[in-house]
């Protein structure tokens, strides 16, 4: 039964059909699944299946990534209100667009997926300085800083990921806080993440959520 829900839900997401995805969720609720079941047995496995599908089929389009995140985040938010007790969170990430970068689509996709995977997300918005990333990660006890950059100069600038890496080094935080990056320039040069001092990167927003969860687990087993 659950497999059928997951399959129908993902088919709707793949077709970027939000009403159909929500219908599957409502059907599952009326068939007796609890809000916890919806999140842990339907939404999370569906997002994980989507991650696996995207890994096998990198041609999945941006609209599908966007809807995967939006629907999962919306459903999770609604279900969380109905949970009998607050769920245990996996960890916390501070996310934002690099200094000088005003693009927000990528981080919105990543944030949506992370929320559905029970990761606390502190979204700093766009045009974020390296200092703000690191200061916030420290005050919020985050395990990961995620820096999105859609332009080459914001990806490679000393005020972006490289600046975050420098501050983490200077403050002796490299073991406690990991650095993930993403955005168009990294798709064109998959080695770029190393050159900007990051621990990991992902070619798309949905995969980025998986990469960030893996980094959180490195820091917080």
């Amino acid at each position, binding site marked *: 039964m659950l497999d059928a829900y997951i399959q129908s839900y993902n088919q709707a997401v793949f077709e970027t059909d939000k009403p159909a995805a929500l219908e599957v969720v409502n059907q599952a609720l009326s068939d007796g699944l609890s809000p916890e079941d919806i999140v842990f047995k339907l939404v999370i496995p569906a997002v994980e299946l989507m991650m696996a599908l995207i890994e096998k089929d990198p041609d999945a389009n941006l609209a599908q990534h966007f809807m995967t995140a939006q629907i999962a985040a919306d459903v999770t938010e609604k279900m969380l209100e109905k949970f009998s007790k607050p769920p245990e969170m996996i960890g916390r990430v501070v996310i934002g667009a690099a200094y000088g970068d005003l*693009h927000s689509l990528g981080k919105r996709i990543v944030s949506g997926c992370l929320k559905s995977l029970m990761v606390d997300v502190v979204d700093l918005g766009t045009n974020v300085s390296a200092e703000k990333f690191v200061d916030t990660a420290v005050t919020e006890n985050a395990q990961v800083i995620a820096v999105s950059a859609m332009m080459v100069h914001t990806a490679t600038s000393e005020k972006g990921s490289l600046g975050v890496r420098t501050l983490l080094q200077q403050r002796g935080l490299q073991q406690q806080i990991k650095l993930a990056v993403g955005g168009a320039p990294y798709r064109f040069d998959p080695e770029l993440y190393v*050159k900007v001092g990051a621990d990991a990167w992902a070619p798309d927003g949905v995969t980025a959520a998986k990469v960030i969860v893996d980094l959180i687990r490195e820091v917080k087993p």
Partner: protein
Amino acid sequence: MTPLEILSSATTGSPAPRIPVFCNMPDHGARELGMPAKQYFSKGEYVADGQLRMLRRYGYDNIWSLHYVGKEAELLGCREILFADDGVPNVADFVIKNLDDIAKLEIPADITQHPAWQPIADSLRILRSEIGATHPICAYATASTTLPAILMGMDKWMELFLLGPFDVRDELLRKCSDFSQQEIAALRALGASVLIYSTPFGSPYFVSRKQIEQIVMPWMRRDLLPGGSENLIYYCGMAPFNDVIDLIFDELHITNHYISPLADIAEAKRLINTRGLTCGAIDDIKMIHWSAEQTRAEVKRIVEIGKTGSHFLFGNGVMPLAVPEANIQAMVDAAFEYGRLA
């Protein structure tokens, strides 16, 4: 033969000594003139001067009139551009901040009378007068289905595009299409001989083929209705679009295609064949860290795939400012060398 004649030969498949070699460096002109980006883009004379100097220095075939993509947003009311001396200007003030703003959005009756248009007009007039008889002059126009991304932000546009309200989405698209029609006509009137039609939402990397066919295609057809598709290059912002090349031929009659470095260039050449021009682009982000030898090797690979049977042009993406000058020169030299035709 002049570069313009070489391009014409590549398009028609008639004999030529070599393939055309295009180089796209809209942001480099400021550095060439030793001035901040904001100052450089403030006058058409500066842009024309910067582009002409780079053309003389590197010796490629085309010249760019594009200032920056956000210029289109300025023509529609954007009041702030975030300039950077090490990269591309960003739109910092979205014209559409909420959906109610769509009803208020007004397309100027004549965009050529808008103050933001004057630097474009000035640069094009100079370029046409200086080298218009010998060199292709490139201009850039964003498709109606992509223009909203710079008016409201990509995530808000993706949301409206996919989830509606669809009557509001279509109202915005109609206005954007009215703008595209005007812009294309105005650029042609000023002497742009190659028009880059930028349409990322026309790539299956952005939306599904079904969405392209059902939603994007009718608006692209409308954009191009008044002036037709002559001298237009289909460009998806460096996103791959091999899967819709046939569709673009059938529905839009655009025969020139700018292929992403992430796409299979051999497949694209097979699909386009002698029906039009395959533009093979190098991954110039990798050029930041490549050596000159690595750059040459990649140019050789691309050109050898593409040049057989002619109907091929070599080009690049947006050439980041961090790419060493030696690599730019190596790219251009290698394209000339390997692009020789028997």
